[in-house]
């Protein structure tokens, strides 16, 4: 692990990272543009979130499956994930440290009268909202974010603070393996330009084992880990057994007593793929 330079505010936001995203703030909603891979990721991450939540609820309506659910989208960017979740009925709060991102997100949702009411955006870091949002949210979504944060443990602690007991945390991120360096950085960024150059730093990638360990020692119980694969030719994502590249993770904050639930040997090969896609039309 590389020693990060000591930052003034003990924050999970990394200012170097912010600069990278600043340049592309207006490109979020171009479906064929720099963010096309994130647009198509919705095709698997939205059903994953939706079906996992539905399997934990009773009495939902298929026409409005996430109605009544309060979701925090951390690092929401231009709102690519907030909008579909909002369309499914959830009340979404999207936060992002970069003001330009929030501006883009706000403008895009303003044209849709339904979404304009269901989604609220705020330019803020996670720590800044902890004070006013203790145990407010049913669900936190941190998709393609943890590989950009400065201090992962602080980030997770904050997630725990704003999440209701037994609330769900969804993370998608990239594993730190030789394969992810070769494909995720060299090919994706430098050769094929699937991801804008310099977006990712391999040293900040997190392996599922590390993430699970951090989560379990901070009051979470990891329920599901699934590998994800991007096909650059078709521009689409699919699930796969191996988590050596991208993966998605679902964890639940332990109940009111505050005791972390005992960990079973969770091997990541024990993929709950079928439960995650149950109930798809």
């Amino acid at each position: 692990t590389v020693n990060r330079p000591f930052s003034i505010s003990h924050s999970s936001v990394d200012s170097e990272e912010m600069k990278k995203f600043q340049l592309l703030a207006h490109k979020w909603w171009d479906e064929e543009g720099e963010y096309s891979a994130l647009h198509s990721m919705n095709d698997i991450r939205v059903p994953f979130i939706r079906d996992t939540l539905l399997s934990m609820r009773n009495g939902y309506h298929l026409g409005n499956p996430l109605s009544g659910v309060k979701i925090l989208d951390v690092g929401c960017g231009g709102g690519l994930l907030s909008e579909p979740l909002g369309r499914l009925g959830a009340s979404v709060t999207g936060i992002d440290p970069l003001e330009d991102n929030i501006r883009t997100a706000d403008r895009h949702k303003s044209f849709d009268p339904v979404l304009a009411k269901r989604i609220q955006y705020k330019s803020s870091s996670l720590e800044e909202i902890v004070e006013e949002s203790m145990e407010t949210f049913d669900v936190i979504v941190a998709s393609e974010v943890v590989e950009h944060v400065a201090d992962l443990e602080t980030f997770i602690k904050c997630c725990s603070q704003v999440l209701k007991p037994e609330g769900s945390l969804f993370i998608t991120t990239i594993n730190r393996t030789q394969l992810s360096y070769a494909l995720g950085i060299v090919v994706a960024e430098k050769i094929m330009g699937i991801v804008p150059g310099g977006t990712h730093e391999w040293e900040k990638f997190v392996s599922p084992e590390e993430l699970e360990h951090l989560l379990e020692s901070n009051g979470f119980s990891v329920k599901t880990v699934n590998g994800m694969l991007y096909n650059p030719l078709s521009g689409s994502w699919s699930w796969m057994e191996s988590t050596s590249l991208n993966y998605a993770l679902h964890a639940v904050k332990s109940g009111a007593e505050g005791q972390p639930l005992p960990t079973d040997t969770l091997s990541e090969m024990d993929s709950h793929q079928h439960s995650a896609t149950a109930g798809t039309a």
Partner: protein
Amino acid sequence: LGHDIHFHDKKIALLEAGPRKEYNHVPDRYSNRVSSISPGSATLLSSFGAWEHVCNMRLKPFRRMQVWDACSEAMIVFEKDDLDDMGYIVENDVIMSALTKQLDAVADRVEVFYRSRAVGYTWPLPSHSSDTSPWVQIELADGRRLQTKLLIGADGHNSVVRKEAQIKNIEHQYDQSAVVATLHLSEATDNNVAWQRFLPTGPIALLPLSDTASSLVWSTSHEHASELLAMDEESFVDSINSAFWSNINHSDFIDTAGALFRSAISLLKPSGTAVRQLPPSVAKVDAESRAMFPLGMGHATEYVQHRVALIGDAAHRVHPLAGQGVNLGFGDIACLAHHLSAAAFNGSDLGSLKHLLKFETERQRHNVSLIAAVDVLKRLYSTRLAPLVLLRTWGLQATNALPPIKVRI
């Protein structure tokens, strides 16, 4: 879509140029515009409760279809092994009435604007950073304005939506018109067979409506069509009977060649030639039921664009000789509804090209081969030239003897 559960909180508007059509009770006379509804289309209609209404009104199932050539003895018969219904002949007005009833049932989600017309469309700009609305704006003739995330063009072969969206259309007017009429048969019969005979001027078809009535669809040259409409009822009936029964187009050469081929087939495949049934003869025609309309073929180069989709005749137009036009449209609907429903359940923007393209690929793959085949058949059967007649005679006889091909058709 109004009945789809994933569309529970969506709003749909239907712009209909015509008046509201509903039957409180079915009129005694048959309407002269009918369609042959395939079992697949019937399934679609029953998936949202419309088929039940159709059954309560009026329809005629048929079990068998006999198609033969005027220039030879070649014939092909279609029927399902299990003696199930092959399809249904239903009046278009009956279908409309059934649909109206089911639209009423979801009036809170679907708003129908009868007698309305769109006079202007404003398309969203592709770049998303603009300040103008990213949705499609529609201006109606009465001045009202609507905006939508997805505009579906179902406005027929002269589709305005398609033209305004600047989607190119490959089209070709046939030098034929179709004459339709409601006919009464000489004697009551089971009448569960659909008949079609290919004359050199075009196919003539008799579609059963009841034990005593059938609907006529006769595709022929524009001049002949006008003559048919102008002549008195008796001559009209005579023309129809002679079209089905006369053998003047046969030539010895073709007959012999056909007979030789048939005996060859029966050597290889004893059951390969079916029994030829005789079509019913017509006694009279319903007054005022004669009408004609020109025929053509068309295919849009694209079915979809950002926030736009074309279905039915707006996307493709075929010759009625295969009775498939409306069924292709129903197929489009089933496919588009499926993709939109899945997109809604994923929280996607309904106008997004991602799922619209999936619809386009699926349907173009299915439609293009059928449209091309119908066009080829139309041309192949429009001639008396011996070589082509021989080709199609043998082709028809061979196809009749080969179950796998017949099943595919």
